[in-house]
């Protein structure tokens, strides 16, 4: 079984990368910031902000937080509910 981190993309960010879900191969823990850097190197990813709102396993997270294979990282565009 390949070790990976699930990345969820929503709204405009999903449009930028043309995907709502990606699996990033990851054999060891890394920071949320490192996950974002990898996404920014993908086609369409350059327009992602360097420090977007993020969640890890449904809770808001910071760029310095550590994620491990099996975690779910979500990139959240600026919220517009209500």
């Amino acid at each position, binding site marked *: 079984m390949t070790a990976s981190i699930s990345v969820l993309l*929503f*709204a*405009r960010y999903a449009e930028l990368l043309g995907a709502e879900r990606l699996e990033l191969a990851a054999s060891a823990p890394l920071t949320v910031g490192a996950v974002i850097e990898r996404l920014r190197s993908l086609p369409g990813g350059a327009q992602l902000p360097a420090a977007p709102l993020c969640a890890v396993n*449904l809770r*808001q997270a910071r760029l310095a937080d550590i994620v491990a294979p099996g975690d779910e990282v979500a990139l959240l*565009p600026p*919220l*517009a*509910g*209500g």
Partner: protein
Amino acid sequence: MYLTHDPIDVGSLAHAVHSPARGGLVIFAGQVRDHHEGRAVRRLEYSAYPAMAEAECRAIVDEAATRWPVAVALRHRLGVLEVGELAVAVAVAGAHRGEAFQACRWIIDEVKRRVPIWKRESYADGSEAWVDPTAPGGTMPAAAPESST
């Protein structure tokens, strides 16, 4: 379930919090406006990170109930909405109106602040955009409109 794809029925939310002990009922209902930042809105589409949005709504409702002695009902619509349809509704009942007003206002502010929901607007001229309160002009470009055929 705080999120729904069906039309919101404010009466049923009011009924859910109603009790003879709670004399004050405050309702906030937010509906789709016909304009945004000077542009004529035709309809819009709400999307969400459903699992996190449900969790955040539940956390907001639970926190309100610890801060004020009130009963709370909350519903946010997802999917395509026409102008005038309800996007969100909050019903708060308490023995005293001050608490009900405070809790209702706090809840809708928190929903807007921390529930992962996004809004794509369709304008009268056929263009579309993502609502982004942090962007100059209040929107960011969207990919080609779904309505382009």
